């Protein structure tokens, strides 16, 4: 018996699978790790501007996300890279002086309640990083809006990073805080100059500062088709047009359009969070609608809302509409030519 098995010829152990028998080299983990890789320069710049605090905050958010994925996620799901993206992205939208235990909690919450409760990878309606961020914003509104200045000594701690839960230490006196450009404009009416915004030499969350760099890193992903370029382009165009109109109406009360685009988390959000494949529309037409919706909401919240920043809520709100957008934008099937009667009705 065993002898016969050992002498099987290739003809006798043929596989029988259905076509197609070729497969492109792309895979979901490859896409995810490419996203992680493209975030590395942004992480490096965050560390350059915000010192060791940045490393620790991002590491804590990452640890929260990964540990929950490891413990509660499906087998081996840690290696598909999606939890790592959530961790880094959450870290990048926190201020440098953020208490580490809160960052850890945010990462854990984002993965647990933003992703795993829905069934893991691919099943979540909302971007897990933003779910974590929204949770932190609601739970710790003061800590998450205390922005350290970029002008501090590199090795200095940027805030109460080592605060202990339930015994919140006072922020150490030598921390220099700085308002974000959006906060400056909203509450003091001051517009930061564009060059500073592009280079990143301004206050803000870890990944909010260097707009140009985020654009380049996202552009790499778009070129490899790992993100749908229609979404960032649509968001930027909408924000630009909408705020340009407002600026033309009243240049005193409303900020200039380029300031709107380069300030706050808009570029990071548009490039990395709105384009999350899972939580954005699957059709290209839907992507345009989704992008315009986000751009519109961002300006609306920033200008008339109570908060200086609105990217997070804009994306989360549009995430909730994705199933409807998808249903409404199904592609027109090849050879399904509308009957002439319908075409006339559409014209009329």
């Amino acid at each position: 018996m065993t002898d016969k098995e050992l002498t099987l010829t290739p003809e006798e152990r043929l596989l029988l699978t259905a076509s197609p028998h070729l497969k492109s080299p792309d895979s979901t983990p490859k896409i995810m790790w490419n996203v992680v890789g493209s975030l590395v320069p942004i992480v490096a710049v965050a560390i350059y501007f915000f010192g060791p605090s940045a490393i620790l905050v991002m590491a804590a958010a990452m640890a929260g996300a990964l540990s929950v994925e490891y413990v509660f996620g499906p087998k081996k799901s840690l290696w598909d890279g999606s939890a790592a993206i959530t961790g880094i992205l959450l870290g990048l939208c926190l201020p440098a002086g953020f208490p580490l235990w809160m960052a850890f909690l945010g990462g854990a919450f984002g993965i647990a309640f933003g992703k795993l409760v829905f069934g893991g990878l691919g099943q979540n309606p909302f971007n897990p990083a933003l779910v974590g961020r929204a949770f932190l914003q609601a739970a710790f509104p003061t800590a998450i809006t205390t922005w350290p200045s970029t002008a501090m000594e590199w090795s200095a701690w940027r805030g109460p990073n080592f605060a202990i839960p339930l015994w919140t230490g006072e922020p150490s006196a030598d921390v220099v805080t700085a308002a974000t450009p959006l906060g400056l404009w909203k509450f003091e009416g001051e517009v930061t100059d564009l060059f500073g915004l592009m280079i990143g030499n301004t206050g803000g969350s870890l990944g909010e500062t260097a707009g140009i760099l985020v654009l380049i890193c996202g552009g790499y992903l778009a070129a490899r088709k790992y993100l749908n370029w229609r979404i960032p382009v649509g968001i930027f165009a909408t924000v630009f047009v909408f705020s340009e109109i407002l600026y033309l109406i009243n240049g005193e009360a409303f900020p200039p359009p380029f300031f709107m685009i380069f300030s706050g988390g808009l570029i990071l959000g548009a490039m990395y969070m709105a384009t999350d494949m899972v939580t954005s529309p699957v059709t290209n037409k839907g992507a345009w609608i989704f992008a315009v919706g986000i751009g519109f909401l961002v300006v609306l919240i920033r200008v008339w809302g109570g908060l200086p920043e609105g990217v997070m809520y804009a994306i989360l709100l549009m995430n909730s509409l994705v199933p409807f957008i998808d249903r409404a934008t199904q592609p027109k099937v090849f050879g399904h030519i509308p009957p002439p009667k319908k075409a006339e009705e559409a014209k009329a």
Partner: protein
Amino acid sequence: MWHKLSFSHGVHPPEHKDQSSGVPIRRMPFPDEIVLPLRQHAGKPARLLVEVGDRVERGDKIAEADGFVSVPIHASAAGEVVGIGWWPHPDGSMAEAVRIKVEKFSPQIPRPRVIPRWEGLDPKDVVAAVQKGGVVGLGGAAFPTHVKLLPPKDVPIEVLLINGAECEPFLTTDHRTMVEYPDRVWFGVRIMMKALGVGRAVVGIENNKPDAIEILSKTKPEDLNAEVQGLYVKYPQGAEKMLIKAVTGREVPSGKLPMHVGAVVQNVGTIACIAEIFETGLPLIERVVTVTGPGVNKPQNLIVPVGAKFKDILAFCGGIKENVTEILSGGPMMGAAQPDLDAPATKGVTGIVVLTEKESRARTVYNCISCGHCLDACPMFLNPSLMGKLAQTAKYQEMTEKANLWDCMLCGACSYVCPSNIPLSQMFGMAKYQLGRLRRKEDAA
């Protein structure tokens, strides 16, 4: 000539054609036994004419066309009928087949027959000669050719399209046919144009076959209103509807035939086969088959007698390597894996592709991440992502209602691009099969 004519969407799988594209077509010697299934074409199987023990000559009719959408089948070698019964078919199923023991010392000269003179013939008689010759589409689908040549009177045909795209990776049968038999192709085009009464013909060839484009352009007869058109290299450019879209810009309406947009599409191999009927009087008893793939020792393009077994063909190509995992009838995108190498190369077998461990590696399937790559790949503009989610829960009926399953032609582009390795096309094939079974059951009840 080098226009970027094409259709929208589609994919770019690696071509893998170098192994066999430079190898001239050669004849394979007759094997010991030939197996001729009665079902080698789309439509009704042919009706048996012979009995066990009968002696047949090469080219003798052994089964008669049964109805309009059917063609006769001819013996591809002289010999004795030794068996009639179920036999493995290259589509993976079993089919009723005639086994002929090939006579060792026969010179294999076809029985003298009348060569139809095409000049004086009425178009109707041309079409009849095509059916009599047992001609089917040699591009893989094996649809009886004469059916396409008889459009209803109220449907005007404006253009004859010759399909030389050969978009399936690995295959080079059409390529070699065009390079080596250009005159035969043009002769076939002339006959087809006459049979259809069309004034214009276009030969569509993917730009990755520059030699074929050049030779066909050079040899085109002056008096023929035909042209050679280079096509952008993209899969599935050779699908009938995609070719029509690329060349004429017209969309074949869902559920309709190419003739409804004034076009008839014929494969280059089919055209050459028709020309051969009018040159030699021989029916379709042999065809060009590409034997290739990393797992075969001597890749080549062969003239194979219809009904030669896969194992005999592979043996002639130097056998297969140790690490072979899969042997396909047809190309890797739409071809069927063979469980049994006793299956014969029927009229519809375009190639035999031998794959090894590297190509057949099992891949982890992840959840759909809604990346939309499959929507950008689908040449029919379907939503494979949605269809896949329905198929995973066996909601086959819903797939036809919500997602136009019947427009899917199982080209495999969606499965090819899916980063989550979801077997989309495979599941759609299963859905179609199950729905077909259900329908047959209802019809029977």
